[in-house]
């Protein structure tokens, strides 16, 4: 009873529309991640679900009930904030128990539930401390604990890991995944980090300028981005884009990129296109389409290396190569790819797909 349904939800600040008719449903127990660049409205949308922002238009349902006018505390929601927002003057134990105290639970039960959550998050030894005496990661655990202790069915996370360093971020990511696996609570998680989105989400919602750009599982978004924006946002390093020309050729299509060309299935589209190829799909010295290039820089990452290459027309590409390629700057190479791995985007930035062959 904790699924979320958003119907034509709108948020306006004065004349400015920051969320424009968003429709989305989140199934019970699902882990959904809102991702997008800053200013895309992802946090606003989360705060509207939480009840911290009013909904200007449209309807929000939680567990099948209209929640637009319900105060935050009665929506059955627990929320974790980016800045942790722990109460600085209270001990960890009181921070955890404060919501229960507010709800006037018996002291014995509060202690019991706080102890249970502390055990679950391995923060029992910190109970007597103040937030200021904790490290960032510990504070984050307490903040999560404060959400857990209310045993709500719906969790909201607002960029919870942004203030942590890289190591801790990974550790907490694993921890959040574990919490979701064990509690199976419906979770909505906001981040600008596509890696967090890819690793945590059942489904990712990519937002841009207050619109939903695409919704899908991480692999769907990775393999079939609906538009150029999603294609460039998901995956690291970013997808490479080249300009090409698509023309109808007999029963199929023909793609021209610089001096190279290759026949394709029928796309039913003619004109300029963006050809998107992920760094990991680029092949040094192979592929259906091959282009001459010169090496700019090689960044060895250990098991693999990022090769920055420049094409004849000055455009640069990033190639992810296995091992440690023996390449010197300015060396001449060929960069190519299999056309089946390339993504084509039309003039309106939407993905083009082959007309059922």
């Amino acid at each position, binding site marked *: 009873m904790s699924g979320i349904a958003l119907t034509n939800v709108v948020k306006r600040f004065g004349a400015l529309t920051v969320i424009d008719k968003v429709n989305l449903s989140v199934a019970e127990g699902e882990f959904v991640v809102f991702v997008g660049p800053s200013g895309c409205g992802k946090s606003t949308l989360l705060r509207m679900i*939480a009840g*911290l922002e009013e909904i200007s238009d449209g309807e929000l349902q939680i567990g099948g009930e209209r929640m637009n006018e319900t105060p*935050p*505390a009665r929506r059955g*929601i*627990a*929320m974790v*904030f*980016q*800045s942790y*927002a*722990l*109460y*600085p*003057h*209270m001990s960890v134990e009181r921070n955890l128990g*404060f*919501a229960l105290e*507010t*709800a006037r639970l018996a002291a014995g039960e509060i202690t019991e539930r706080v102890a249970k959550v502390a055990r679950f998050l391995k923060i029992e030894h910190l109970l007597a401390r103040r937030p200021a005496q904790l490290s960032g990661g510990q504070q984050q655990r307490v903040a999560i604990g*404060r959400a857990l202790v*209310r045993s709500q069915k719906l969790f909201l996370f607002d960029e919870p890991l942004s203030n942590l360093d890289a190591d801790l971020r990974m550790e907490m990511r694993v921890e959040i995944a574990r919490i979701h696996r064990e509690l199976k609570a419906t979770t909505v998680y906001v981040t600008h980090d596509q890696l967090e989105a890819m690793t945590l989400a059942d489904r990712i919602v990519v937002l841009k300028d207050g619109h939903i750009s695409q919704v899908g599982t991480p692999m769907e978004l990775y393999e079939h981005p609906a538009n150029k924006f999603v294609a460039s946002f998901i995956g690291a390093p970013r997808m490479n884009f080249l300009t090409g020309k698509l023309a109808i050729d007999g029963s199929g299509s023909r793609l021209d990129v610089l001096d190279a060309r290759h026949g394709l299935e029928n796309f039913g589209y003619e004109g300029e296109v963006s050809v998107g190829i992920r760094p990991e799909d680029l092949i040094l010295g192979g592929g259906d389409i091959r282009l001459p290039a010169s090496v700019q820089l090689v960044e060895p990452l250990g098991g693999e290396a990022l090769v920055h290459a420049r094409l004849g027309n000055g455009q640069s590409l990033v190639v992810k190569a296995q091992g440690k390629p023996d390449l010197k700057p300015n060396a001449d190479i060929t960069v190519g790819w299999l056309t089946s791995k390339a993504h084509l985007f039309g003039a309106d930035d939407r993905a083009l797909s082959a007309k059922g062959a």
Partner: protein
Amino acid sequence: MVRSNTGRRLHRIAIYALFGIVALYTLFPFYWMIASSLKSGQAIFDVTFLPDLKFNNYQAILSDGVFLRSLLNSLIVAFSVVALSLLLAVGAAYALGRIDFRGRSPIMLLVLAVSMFPQIALLSGLFEMIRWLGLYNTIGSLIFAYMIFTLPFNIWVLTTFMRDLPKQIEEAAIMDGCSPLRIVRCIFLPMMGPALISTGLLAFIASWNEFMFALTFILTDENRTVPVAIALISGSSRYEFPYGAIMAASTIVTVPLIVLALLFQKHIVSGLTAGAVKG
């Protein structure tokens, strides 16, 4: 250039000399007051810098029922003013600092404007109000009047402080199910400790020392506060001016302020500077 040893020593001597002058300037009146209070009878008119350590002035003043009564009145007034003005100022600060509503800045400016009127300008109008409220010649009139200068200052300081408290903490409390009242009481008040202490202390000092309103609104001895009571201490005959008793009374009256200031000195500075710099 390396400064020579003698140069450095001279520099240091100069600094200490300056300290000495400032200390003398600020502390000598207090010393003179205490020293005089410890002299008895005619000795007060001899210019000697060492006190006699005679306590008869204190004996006299502490056995004077009127003075003790006025001391009690002063305590009641000062503590009531502190409690009431903090209570009202915290409520106002929450509204002005945390809630967006039309006319917030005009209200802030109005509050500031009120605190700029000279006391004397308010005197006759306030007198009418106090008569009309039936508070004339009660300590209630003073509590009422002192709020006029303590409240604007408290509201300003607390509003700045309240505005700078992190928004997410308030939202976390909302998610935890807190009403606005509970947020203020359980979350904001404890976080505002230093600001409350410094504004409260300043309100206390202001009402403790106030003279003009206390002189105007109070008619009879049993309702007077200490500053007026001291001014009205008279000798056994009209040709005697009881300097010794006045000095002893003044010393007694200064003590609570010094105790409070020492007790909270750490918080006063942190409270007054809070909000000046964004953390």
